[in-house]
């Protein structure tokens, strides 16, 4: 009996955490460059329950889904979207961070920065737009090289983690950080699109379906628990005469 209670309790805590993940995905449905977290716990759990093989504790995987989001045309010169696998790099005091949010700006010195004011890395150091050149004259080619008028100013640093993508951790503010042992490599088949932003890849319907599933599984587990406690009660009654 206590064994069953332990199983239910682990299922319930897993489902609660999955609701948290779904809530975060849905909260970020309009966040540029956001990648949804997969929520597989309830699927594993329901598969187990249908097979009558209630191992109880299913592994809660929360890997990122790095598929591309929708591309939204914004028309801003400094809005850049990455089409294909890859990340922009922003420099911070704690080392480089990786992001898919290409909504950039210039600071007062003309350096390319993200919306938090962190410097965007270029292939050869930070990218500075010379004085006297206005933002509307900046042109970003599909390989990330930046020209203003006729002068080449620099090239965006774009990296890729290939199969190591899931070792990235979310650092918040649209950025990912990589553990020390994971080194980014050169991207393949990635295209920079100027004047576009990459929308979040959260699919509302999918998340809603998962949410209903979590809700129902939670309810079912609670029913088990109440049936369990009823059984215990009657067992005790029988034993005590």
């Amino acid at each position, binding site marked *: 009996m206590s064994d069953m209670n332990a199983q239910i309790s682990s299922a319930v805590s897993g489902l609660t955490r999955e609701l948290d993940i779904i809530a*975060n995905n*849905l909260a*970020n449905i309009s966040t540029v460059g956001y990648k949804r977290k997969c929520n597989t716990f309830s699927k594993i759990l329901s598969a187990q329950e249908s097979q009558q093989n209630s191992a109880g504790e299913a592994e809660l995987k929360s890997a990122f889904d790095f598929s591309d989001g929708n591309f939204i045309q914004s028309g801003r010169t400094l809005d850049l979207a990455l089409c294909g696998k890859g990340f922009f790099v922003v420099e911070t005091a704690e080392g480089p961070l990786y992001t898919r949010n290409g909504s950039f*700006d*210039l600071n007062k010195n003309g350096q390319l920065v993200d919306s938090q004011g962190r410097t965007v890395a270029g292939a050869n150091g930070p990218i500075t737009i010379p004085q006297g050149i206005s933002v509307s004259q900046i042109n970003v080619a599909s390989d990330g090289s930046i020209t203003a008028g006729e002068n080449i100013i620099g090239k965006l640093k774009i990296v890729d983690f290939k199969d190591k993508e899931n070792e990235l951790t*979310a650092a918040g503010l649209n950025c990912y950080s990589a553990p020390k042992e994971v080194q980014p490599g050169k991207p393949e088949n990635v295209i920079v699109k100027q004047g576009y932003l990459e929308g979040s890849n959260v699919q509302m319907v999918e998340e*809603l379906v998962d949410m209903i599933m979590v809700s129902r599984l939670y309810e079912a587990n609670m029913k088990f628990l*109440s049936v369990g406690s009823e059984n215990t009660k009657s067992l005790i009654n029988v034993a005590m005469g």
Partner: protein
Amino acid sequence: MLRAFSTAATGMSAQQMMVDVTANNLANINTSGFKRSQVDFQDLLYIKMREAGAEVSSGIKAPSGIEVGSGVRAGATQKVFTNGELINTGRNLDIAISGDGFLQVTMPDGTIKYTRDGALQLGPDGQLVTTTGYLIEPAITVPTGATNISIAPDGGVNVTTNSGTTIIGTIQLARFTNPSGLSSDGDNLLSDTEASGTATTGTPGADGFGTIQASFLEKSNVQMVTELVNLITAQRAYEVNSRTIKAGDDMLRNSIQIASV
């Protein structure tokens, strides 16, 4: 309590902000020189329950970690400085800037502000002023007895009097390294900030500045369809976040029912 509640609440307030910004864009769809804003959202910090690469059993490392995010916030509202459509008004004091640059406006306290709204008027003493009555910088005064005023593409203000046509001044434009960093002060005015950098001034048509189009006004760059799509998206996203709260609430109600059996 469930973390999902506060996460969904951040989502709802973010969408509310999106509706606010969209509402302001739509309200200014006919405002001359208005530039639309867009909101840039950011995910909040993550609670790490297990690091990626942590050892789960001897020699086996977890391929991915367990981290749960705590919602979303608005990171920035950016002004989009694309050019609006130029509309022929036929009024000789209406000017539009075709290309880059802002008109400079002197405030009563002497500070300079910037605008793209070129519906100029004549002040009581013949000065060129904005619709609100602020002086254009550099100050240009039209002499009494002028029969015609025309503004050239390079900003030169020509006045015809009985004694012929003379140039009485040139409109100068200002430009910023980071126009998104300008702060909006209402009345179609913008002012410089730490983030925008200081203004570089110049003559229209030179050094990459736009040219002056007389008898034209620049409409706002708000596209009704885009804003309506944003509005619908924001509304639905708000709704779906409230559903999360509902689902969390159902789960809690379930647990409470069990506890009270």
